């Protein structure tokens, strides 16, 4: 027993390393644990105070409300405009009118970004709305220029958003006008990639990308970006596309949550 104790003392740095490594792996593999999620939400709520000075300076209460209202209307109009751009013939017009009817009924909740995490790559936001405002897990988060992400953990007054720049984020998208469907993921530097696009699809640089109707989370026809490059993979039945986002995700201060 005594020899084990002395061996432990001699090797204590290795023992501490193994212990910390084990704990980290345990936490990493239990990331979806509800208790940990609850703890993270609580922590993010307390952490939000670090953004108070900048929020106080940049947005006074009265202006904030008016601004949110205007942004809401602006988003509705931009979504309507994007829908109308898709009109190519009568059938499309009819479908777009239905889209418009649906889109104009989107229940949008404005939210301020209270935190952007401190990891070396930006993959999440903390926003100032939660279950008290009607937010639920997996609610889409957008701005007028496109999809931003989705809510991942929701507390009473704050929520953590998984951004489109998170390596784990995937989005089913449609390329217009061809209508081909693909899966979008983040590449870095405001560039995304769409995979699993059929090789037969007629896609050109500059084509617009919207959310498809296959997603359980995102409504169809939300703008995502624009095709900037096309790669035909040899020996594959699929194309690979590079997409340029319409906005810079790093500078966002306000977003909208689409409520059910």
């Amino acid at each position: 027993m005594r020899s084990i104790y002395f061996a432990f003392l001699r090797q204590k740095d290795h023992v501490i390393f193994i212990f910390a490594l084990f704990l980290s792996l345990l936490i990493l593999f239990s990331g979806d644990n509800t208790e940990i999620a609850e703890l993270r939400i609580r922590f993010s709520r307390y952490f939000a105070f670090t953004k108070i000075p900048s929020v106080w300076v940049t947005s006074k209460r009265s202006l904030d409300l008016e601004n949110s209202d205007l942004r809401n209307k602006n988003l509705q109009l931009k979504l309507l405009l994007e829908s109308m751009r898709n009109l190519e013939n009568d059938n499309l017009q009819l479908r777009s009118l239905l889209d418009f009817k649906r889109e104009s009924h989107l229940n949008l909740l404005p939210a301020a970004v209270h935190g952007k995490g401190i990891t070396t790559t930006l993959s999440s936001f903390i926003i100032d709305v939660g279950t008290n405002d009607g937010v639920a897990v997996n609610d889409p988060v957008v701005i007028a220029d496109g999809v931003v992400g989705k809510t991942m953990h929701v507390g009473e007054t704050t929520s953590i958003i998984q951004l489109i720049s998170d390596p784990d984020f995937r989005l089913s998208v449609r390329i217009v006008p061809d209508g081909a469907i693909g899966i979008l993921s983040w590449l870095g530097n405001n560039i995304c990639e769409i995979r699993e696009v059929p090789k037969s699809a007629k896609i050109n640089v500059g084509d617009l990308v919207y959310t498809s109707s296959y997603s359980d989370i995102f409504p169809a026809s939300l703008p995502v970006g624009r095709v900037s490059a096309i790669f035909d993979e040899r020996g594959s039945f699929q194309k690979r596309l590079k997409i340029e986002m319409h906005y810079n995700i790093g500078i966002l201060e306000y977003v909208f949550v689409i409520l059910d």
Partner: protein
Amino acid sequence: MKFNKRYIIFGLSATILQILLSDLLSIKLIRPDFILIFLLYLTIWEGRIAGISTGFLLGLLVDFIGVASYFGLSALLYTVFTYILGVIHNKYSKWPPILYHSFWSLCIVLLYFIRFSITSARLLDYNPQVFWGSVLFSSLYTLAFAIIVLLFLPLARDS
């Protein structure tokens, strides 16, 4: 282990800098890691035990302050980083300077390599340029800040 006031001030400053400035200094969504620079000094000056325990706790803090996925990854990476870095604790006068400085620089590159290998593994398969670009840019960005700190606060301090 002398856990004096200086480390607490240094650690707090690094954390506050990380919270307040990392966003402002972000280039292409890549941010410098001031906490990593603090851990570099702490481990080299005080050794593995101080480095690993502080690294693990600060990693947890970073993860708690809003990461969407891979919760716990920062704690894991800081733990591994400080463990490997512990090799050069008290070795400043024994190792050739070029080897000594290359070692901790490579530790930083290794940390980012592991991070991106875990979070963006598929990139390495079909877009290795983007993968290696991200690894190198992220590590060089933090290294640049480490070198700036190094000009004012030398690493040389064998006990």
